[in-house]
């Protein structure tokens, strides 16, 4: 992997974010390169969600610069749209559109953004539904699917935009244990295809298997940024050690 400016996917420089008085992100510096897979972990409230939500403009940062695929993220609608076009996101609560079928969920964005006809968009969507192994559910409503299936639909829906970067915000945290595996397997397959990914998760086995780097956050700061092996075997900070011991106890 060549870490050059041309294949910088995410570049955050001195980024700060406040919610009112509350300082949620503090002096974040982060560079992520094409094909890299990052796992973000840390205690609740440490700013993990806020960090990735700033990357596609769901939250606004007040200070510092964020560049995604070379585009500076600012208040300009054009810049936000340009960035979102190449960045997919998967949420903890799936956030599927409950009144639309699985297929309709998937074709909405490509029809609007890629100007595809319904037939073309459906064909595209079907290929991604096949990839997450639920083509047979295409005409069902989200409410008729299991949690694991819903999350896989959400992944397929994001992939339909053919993004160059995927953001995951605790994609398995609201799933029953028996469904976690199917979603993680889908994500591993995606990783094997070389997709750049930033994934907030506490699934440490997943981190060990697919991550190039683990980022540990605490109180709005990036405290560690290491290879999974180094992070798990030799955490540099007391906070990370404490966090790992708490997680591994479970």
């Amino acid at each position, binding site marked *: 992997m060549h870490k050059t400016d041309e294949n910088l996917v995410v570049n955050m420089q001195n980024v700060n974010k406040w919610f009112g008085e509350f300082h949620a992100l503090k002096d974040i510096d982060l560079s992520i390169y094409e094909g890299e897979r990052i796992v973000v972990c840390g205690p609740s409230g440490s700013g993990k969600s806020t960090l990735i939500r700033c990357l*596609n*403009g*769901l939250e606004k940062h007040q200070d510092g610069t964020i560049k995604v695929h070379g585009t500076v993220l600012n208040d300009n609608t054009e810049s936000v*749209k340009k960035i*979102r*076009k190449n*960045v*997919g*996101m998967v*949420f903890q*609560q799936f*956030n*599927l*559109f*409950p*009144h639309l079928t699985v297929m309709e969920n998937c074709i*909405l*964005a490509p029809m*609007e*953004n890629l100007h595809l006809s319904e037939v073309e968009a459906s064909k595209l969507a079907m290929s991604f539904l096949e990839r997450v192994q639920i083509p047979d559910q295409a005409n069902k409503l989200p409410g008729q699917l299991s949690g694991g299936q819903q999350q896989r639909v959400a992944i397929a*829906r*994001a992939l339909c*935009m053919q993004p160059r970067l995927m953001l995951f915000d605790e994609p398995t945290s609201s799933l029953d244990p028996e469904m976690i595996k199917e979603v993680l397997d889908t994500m591993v397959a995606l990783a094997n295809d070389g997709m750049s990914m930033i994934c907030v998760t506490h699934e440490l086995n997943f981190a060990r298997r697919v991550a190039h780097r683990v980022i540990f956050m605490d109180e709005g700061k990036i405290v560690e940024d290491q290879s999974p092996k180094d992070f798990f075997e030799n955490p540099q900070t007391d906070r990370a050690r404490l966090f790992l011991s708490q997680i591994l106890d479970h």
Partner: protein
Amino acid sequence: MSELLIDIFGKPHGIIIFQLVAATRFTIYLSLVAFGGGGVVAAMITFLTISPQPGLGKIAQTYIWFFQSIPLLMLLFLTGLGVPRLIGVDVNPWTAATISLVLFTSAYLAEVWRGAIAAVLPGQWEAGFALNISFVSTLKKVILPQAIRYGLAPTVGFMVQIIKGTSLAYIIGFSDLMLTGKRWANAPVSGSEPFIIFPIMAVIYFCICYPLAVVARKLEAEDLAKS
């Protein structure tokens, strides 16, 4: 029609009923105009309340708050008697009643609709934005179809309030069921005493309002069953 009613109810009741039913037309027209006009204005106000521009939202909230705090009767006095006197022109009762009811209706419906939109989970907006779907498309294709579920029952229920509300317009000389009935009740005609006229009027109002109330209640029950 008039002869038929006279045949059935005799004089003067046949004539009274005929006139009351004929006047009900105007009650219905006014209600429809109030609902249509109020609905259009409410849609615009609702859009402002959810617009990403915070200033516009403030204006819309103020509008809602202001017209919800003024009794309908007060609005009728102001538009029908106050303002015309102030600027020295005659305003016909139709115009004044329409303006009052549209203001009243729009403020109420905007509040209902704003609430219905707010009841849709914020994750739905975020999913739309994350998929690079524009604000307007997200609103149209994702949010509104879900918000209608929350807003439909109270909207239909409010139509009942509008119909009843139009009865106040008699006060500025709007000739509807209410005014016609009141005239009869005051007339020195035997058989048109208030204790006869007012129950007839109540029955007419009931016949218009009850079906709407039933529909509203049914929609509400369906909602509860779904959630």
